[in-house]
């Protein structure tokens, strides 16, 4: 499988885990999307460092773009293959799902205000 194909599987698996397996439903919460929005900006910066400097180099046969490292275009965004965005999305979502799921199991989140409105519980 190419990197492109695996990232598609990883994103679908992460969303399925969140929605149906762990039922954390973070992808329906504004809090998670706000968190991801912050993280993705820094991912572009740090991943741009890793890829722009050639600390990590990609096989052109495994990605959508060619092997040429460009700022934007040719399947790249801030030097990194666009696949890295999907990789990061899957990694961050899976992490938060595991964290929240484990917290619910150990009742670590019982510190939540009991009177929290139902509409906010989805957070």
């Amino acid at each position: 499988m190419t990197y492109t194909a695996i990232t598609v599987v990883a994103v679908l698996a992460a969303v399925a885990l969140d929605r149906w397996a762990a039922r954390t439903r973070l992808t329906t919460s504004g809090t998670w999307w706000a968190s991801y929005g912050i993280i993705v900006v820094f991912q572009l910066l740090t991943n741009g460092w890793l890829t722009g400097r050639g600390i990590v180099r990609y096989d052109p046969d495994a990605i959508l773009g060619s092997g040429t490292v460009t700022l934007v275009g040719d399947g790249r965004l801030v030097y990194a293959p666009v696949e890295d965005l999907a990789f990061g999305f899957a990694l961050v979502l899976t992490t938060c799902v595991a964290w929240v799921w484990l917290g619910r199991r150990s009742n670590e989140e019982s510190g939540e205000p009991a009177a929290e409105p139902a509409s906010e519980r989805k957070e």
Partner: protein
Amino acid sequence: MSVPHWSYVAMLAFCLVGTLPLVPAFRLRVLRQPTRLLLTVVAVGSPFLVWDLYATRSGHWRFDAAQTLPWRVAGLPLEEIAFFVVIPLVAVLTYEAVRVVRRPGAARRPPQRREVR
């Protein structure tokens, strides 16, 4: 080792320097739950490390020896393994900080209230 060998380490350090201050700033109870944190890192890091090993062996990507430290574990630089500890930690800290900010009445609540366990 020359300075360029620390290039990948620098990126990981940047991530930690940027997010660890969230713990005191928002009085996060993340590091105080080491078991939950460790389980999260292991549960999530493991499958992604397997993916990384597969991708590296398949040649999907490779690491510049001149910009990483010399140590390798199963062909991966130590930094790449640390990546799967640092990024989950960064994700949890960011998520928990955003949760505090978005909590109803968070701005008005005295900060010491959150220390009650």
